[in-house]
């Protein structure tokens, strides 16, 4: 047979491989960029990289099209037409930076709070936060407030770390993996690799998610829960476990605050707080000697139940007594919650039974002696191989904080935190609340021409740490850390534009945004936000938000609303660090960080935003950016990454420190550090010794390791907080028992929701709107092949999701006579959209959903005007308001979690009606003119290499 080789089989892929870090989403995988003739030939996963081990997702592989997208901005822009018109004039960097410096310097001299600096998908928060602090404005945060702050805050306040970037399931050892509400766009490659392992090992994978796409599609068991009721399901499982006595008592006693005594003195300022001795140590009741002693007393065997009399005569009970009493209540029985959650009694009970069986009957053990923080020696690490993971599905509800707390409590109850087979922390976590700063931004923390006295974001220990003035009014523009959202540890970016527009609590002068598409998919109430950005004060003719500086790499919808545009580079043209000071890429077994470096040079007049920020810092002569002669400390971001020290010997990167590059964690700056990173594949990894790999929260070897690495200066063990005292302090304030007192307006809400023990309440929107008028829940899911709005400018990715239908459950379709391609009105208390539908069966029967952020505004992202993204694609955002509907108390409450301020995207209630067919979805907006090049009519990428 004729098979003479007709193909060149051994052509080299390219001329050179440059290894860097992906930025097509937040995974931060290692990539090998193959360069041929100066162009990108091929991008593949780096096999040696600890995050992705060689694999790469659709987004990562489509990096070529992202890099060469016509939507890239080309030069700094000055607005010349009205806002939103997209009329700009290209200017030089010198002029652009001059304008920005003029605006910012004025603000810094007169009133630094008149700058609001917020960043979106920023991976350099340790720099942006530092810059804002040196500038002196209290108004800085990233986008966590509308992303996943409920998860982060609840995790840190309960177990000293959260899911996602703070830890991971022990994929190799877990035998039962339970995932709540995770869509496909975050930590996606590690999750996919992990799920594959779970399935290969024959472990069970349970997904709790109203929609059965993506990961849920391959789950062994799918629980199509009604959105917003996960907390109830979790507590029902806790109920069953307590009833069946399937809890890890030893673990609770050792590692949680279950034995800590809670003062039982109603009507006093200490009621519900922990009993402490004179040195402030929490107390427990020692059962052998029957004495009350400080926790951690050697040899003490503390009680977990009972009622005891303190020295001062007050009563106190171990917090676990309160836990058990609360969750053994029949209101958490499966029968009682089945209706609300939409999950069958037998499924709830079966889930509890499987958790119990795997945790206790299939417990594992790693024979490795270790010593705990009390000095007690253990022969092995006991593992309860039940692991959990959760993300925005739990988070983006107005009960998300307490729901996330409930999930962490469940983990602790079965002894499944940081043990073999369970969820495990990734360094620098665990990190107790005490090791986090308190927030800064009170009036005394800032002033003209001086830095803010401490970091913006942190954990308030009680109402005394709120950023409010003497009248209880917020001092931050976004009202973070105010009575509205006391534990808003990530700030409230989603409130910035509406507050600045309303001048409430005060007007600002400059709004400075980075990589945040606030004029489109990153805002609730998109149409309202657009109006606010365009709105002028009739008296002065000035825009209500007078100056907007925006930095982005692409012609997103937000660009059209900026007065000054600072064009960023693509991720392949820049330096970056994925730092231990920020959101590192550590694994449970290793400390890791990474860099990006310019693997291709920009062909446009653009600059990396971080370098621009450093330049602005120099022009503004900010401390930390200039020396005492006013000369620049750093030549650019690369130089900053290498030479900046946050504490002596501790800089943005942990690897290759010291003059010889052999120091890890702590060490002098090494001028060759970036070179060493690049040689190492642009990442650094230091293994944690086996003895230190588990029980990190209480493991002496790990704590010493953490100090050596420079995470902390002293050991910071974590005691899991089932009972959360900080929340109780707010309740006491709301009862008028503890100063500062909560304002009358907020007391009811705090009393209702700041329970120190996790509980479930119906999401606010569902509670307020009429359930008959708006009978269904509407949510969005994130597709695996698109990251937020990034992707539509990508010629390959946009072919996968060119438009998004509204997915409607089969029973609703049958009731309304809807078939694929029909049009409907979807209406909420706030707005109405008209969109095309598609039928779906594998979905919770009362949940309507669509893919997130596929819809684009006409003219944006350098797409043709008639692009399906703009014609038929749509956003659910138009239905969501930042505020709840009035509930008759004369106030408009924000549509967010009352504890953290997390935007409650997923609380949306809707009704659906059939509509006449249409050519385009509604609402429609006037086109913005695109600042990118208009693209070619045909692409033949790589044709020059065709043989």
């Amino acid at each position, binding site marked *: 047979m004729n098979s003479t080789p007709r193909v060149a089989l051994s052509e080299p892929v390219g001329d050179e491989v440059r290894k860097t870090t992906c930025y097509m989403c937040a995974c931060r995988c290692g990539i090998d960029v193959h360069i041929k003739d100066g162009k990108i030939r091929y991008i593949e996963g780096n096999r040696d990289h600890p995050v992705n081990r060689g694999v790469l997702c659709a987004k990562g592989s489509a990096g070529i099209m992202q890099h060469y997208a016509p939507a890239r901005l080309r030069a700094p822009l000055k607005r010349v037409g009205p806002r939103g018109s997209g009329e700009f004039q290209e200017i030089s960097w010198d002029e652009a930076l001059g304008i920005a410096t003029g605006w910012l310097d004025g603000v810094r001299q007169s009133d630094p709070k008149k700058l609001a600096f917020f960043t979106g998908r920023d991976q350099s928060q340790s720099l942006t936060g530092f810059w804002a602090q040196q500038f002196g404005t209290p108004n800085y945060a990233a986008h966590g407030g509308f992303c996943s702050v409920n998860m982060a805050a609840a995790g840190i306040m309960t177990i000293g770390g959260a899911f996602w970037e703070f830890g991971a399931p022990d994929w190799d050892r877990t035998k039962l993996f339970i995932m709540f509400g995770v869509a496909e766009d975050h930590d996606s490659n590690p999750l996919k690799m992990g799920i594959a392992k779970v399935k290969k090992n024959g472990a069970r994978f349970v997904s709790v998610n109203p929609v059965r796409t993506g990961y849920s599609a391959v789950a062994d068991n799918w629980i199509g829960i009604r959105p917003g009721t996960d907390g109830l399901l979790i507590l029902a499982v806790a109920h069953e476990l307590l009833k069946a006595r399937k809890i890890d008592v030893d673990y609770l006693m050792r590692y949680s605050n279950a034995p800590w005594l809670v003062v039982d003195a109603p009507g006093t300022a200490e009621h519900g707080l922990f009993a402490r001795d004179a040195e402030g140590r929490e107390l427990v009741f020692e059962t052998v000697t029957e004495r009350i002693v400080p926790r951690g007393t050697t040899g003490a065997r503390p009680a977990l139940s009972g009622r005891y009399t303190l020295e001062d005569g007050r009563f106190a009970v171990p917090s676990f007594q309160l836990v058990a009493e609360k969750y053994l209540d029949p209101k958490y029985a499966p029968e009682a919650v089945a209706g609300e959650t939409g999950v069958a009694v037998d499924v709830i009970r079966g889930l509890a039974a499987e958790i119990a069986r795997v945790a206790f009957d299939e417990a594992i053990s790693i024979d490795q002696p270790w010593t705990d923080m009390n000095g007690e020696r253990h022969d092995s690490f006991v593992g309860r191989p039940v692991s959990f993971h959760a993300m925005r599905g739990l988070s983006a509800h107005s009960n998300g904080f307490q729901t996330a707390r409930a999930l962490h409590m469940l983990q602790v109850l079965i002894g499944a935190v940081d043990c073999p087979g369970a969820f495990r922390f990734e360094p620098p976590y665990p990190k107790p609340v005490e090791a986090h700063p308190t927030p800064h931004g009170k009036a005394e923390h800032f002033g003209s021409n001086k830095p803010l006295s401490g970091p913006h974001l942190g954990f308030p220990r009680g109402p005394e740490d709120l950023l409010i003035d003497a009248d209880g009014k917020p001092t931050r523009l976004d009202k973070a850390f105010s009575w509205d959202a006391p534990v808003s540890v990530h700030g409230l970016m989603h409130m910035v534009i509406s507050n600045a527009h309303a001048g409430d609590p005060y007007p600002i002068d400059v709004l400075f945004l980075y990589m945040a598409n606030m004029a489109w998919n990153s805002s609730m109430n998109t149409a309202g936000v657009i109006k606010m950005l365009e709105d002028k004060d009739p008296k002065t003719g000035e825009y209500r938000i007078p100056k907007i500086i925006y930095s982005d790499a692409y012609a997103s919808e937000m660009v059209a609303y900026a007065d000054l545009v600072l064009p960023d580079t693509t991720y392949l043209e820049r330096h970056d660090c994925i730092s231990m000071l920020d959101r590192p890429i550590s694994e449970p077994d290793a400390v890791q960080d990474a860099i990006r470096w310019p693997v291709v040079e920009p062909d446009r007049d653009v600059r990396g935003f971080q370098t621009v920020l450093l330049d602005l810092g120099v022009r503004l002569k900010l401390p930390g950016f200039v020396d005492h002669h006013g000369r620049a400390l750093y030549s650019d971001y690369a130089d900053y990454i290498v030479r900046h020290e946050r504490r002596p010997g501790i800089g943005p990167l942990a690897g290759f420190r010291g003059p010889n590059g052999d120091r890890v964690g702590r060490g002098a700056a090494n001028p060759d550090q970036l070179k060493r990173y690049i040689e190492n594949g642009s990442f650094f990894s230091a293994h944690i010794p086996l003895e230190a790999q588990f029980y990190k929260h209480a493991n002496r070897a790990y704590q010493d390791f953490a100090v050596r690495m420079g995470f902390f200066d002293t050991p910071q063990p974590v005691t899991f907080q089932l009972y959360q005292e900080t929340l109780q302090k707010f309740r006491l304030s709301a009862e008028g028992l503890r100063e500062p007192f909560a304002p009358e307006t907020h007391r009811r809400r705090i009393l209702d929701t700041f329970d120190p023990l996790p509980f479930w309440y119906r999401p606010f929107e569902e509670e307020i709107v009429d359930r008959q008028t708006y009978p269904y829940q509407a949510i969005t899911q994130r597709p695996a092949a698109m990251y937020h709005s990034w992707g539509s400018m990508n010629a390959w990715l946009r072919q996968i999701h060119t438009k998004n239908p509204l997915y409607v459950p089969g029973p609703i379709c049958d009731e309304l006579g809807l078939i694929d391609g029909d049009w409907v009105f979807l209406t909420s208390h706030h707005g109405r959209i008209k969109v095309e539908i598609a039928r*779906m069966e594998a979905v919770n029967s009362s949940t309507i959903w669509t893919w997130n952020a596929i819809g684009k505004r006409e003219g944006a992202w350098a797409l043709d005007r008639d692009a399906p993204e703009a014609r038929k694609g749509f956003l659910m955002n138009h239905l969501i308001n930042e505020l709840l509907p009035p509930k008759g108390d004369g106030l408009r409450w924000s549509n967010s979690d009352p504890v953290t301020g997390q935007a409650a995207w997923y609380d949306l209630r809707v009704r659906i009606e059939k509509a006449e067919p249409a050519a385009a979805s509604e609402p429609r907006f006037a086109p913005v003119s695109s600042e990118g090049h208009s693209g070619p009519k045909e692409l033949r990428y790589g044709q020059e290499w065709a043989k």
Partner: protein
Amino acid sequence: MHPAFSIVIFTTLSGLGYGLAAVLGLGLLDPAATATKIAHLLALALIATGLLSSTLHLGNPQRAWRALSQWRSSWLSREGVMALITFVPLAWSAWASLFDGRYLALPGLVGTLLCAVTVYCTAMIYASLRSVQAWHTPLTPLCYLMFSAAGGLVLASFFGFAGAGSTVLAPALAATFTAAAWIAKLFWRHRMRTLRPISTPETATGLGRIGRVRLFERPHINENYLTSEMGFKIARKHAAKLSAIAFLLGGAVPVLLLLVLPLAGVGAGPSASLIALLAACCHAAGVLMERWLFFAEARHSVTNYYGG
């Protein structure tokens, strides 16, 4: 299947051309008559136009010559080869008629045979495709051959009335073959309409043992080469209407006209020629529609992956 204009034209014109050439090869018409000479030229022109048209849909027509190489396995290649070979006796016959006014039995009969083989090859391009179940039947080549013969005879009748003789036999045969062609087509169509698809979304995905399979999301939202090439759909009602018109134009009308002429005893002449021409045009239009439907109504197994 997408009814590409070039392919519809190709099969229709070459079918008519080969049909006419085959009739000429039988020597039914007076070889010395001008009409016969024109008929020879027309047959060659129809065949050539059809073949040229078929190259219009090629991505790289400059390499079309390569298509002659794989006659051992490929019906398309066989068709190409046969088309070229068939030109030899047809040109010979045409030469003899044009320049000598003679009918030569050897090239004539060989030509007729080769015409049939070529048309058969054309039909087998489609009939050999198991992926298009409607086509995958011996009825497909039968229909192609019958329509080709009918078309050739209808045209021959016209030339007969236009002075080439055979004003009875040719129309009679034309009517017979046209009727037969439509009967074959009726069977073909009935089969297509009542087919139980051998391939379904369940067999295409192997997921039938779990349940009923329906497309939830296309791999890429917009149309692609596969959906535009293989996913062409025509409404059943629409197809039925077109099919009826095709039958009227391509079958009923020409049969009627061609039977009326000899029955009325009309011999050669301008008015008879005109009527016969009308019959031929109707027939061609009807076959064109039939051919369009042949593609448009056929369902490719790939549609099982695209919700169709």
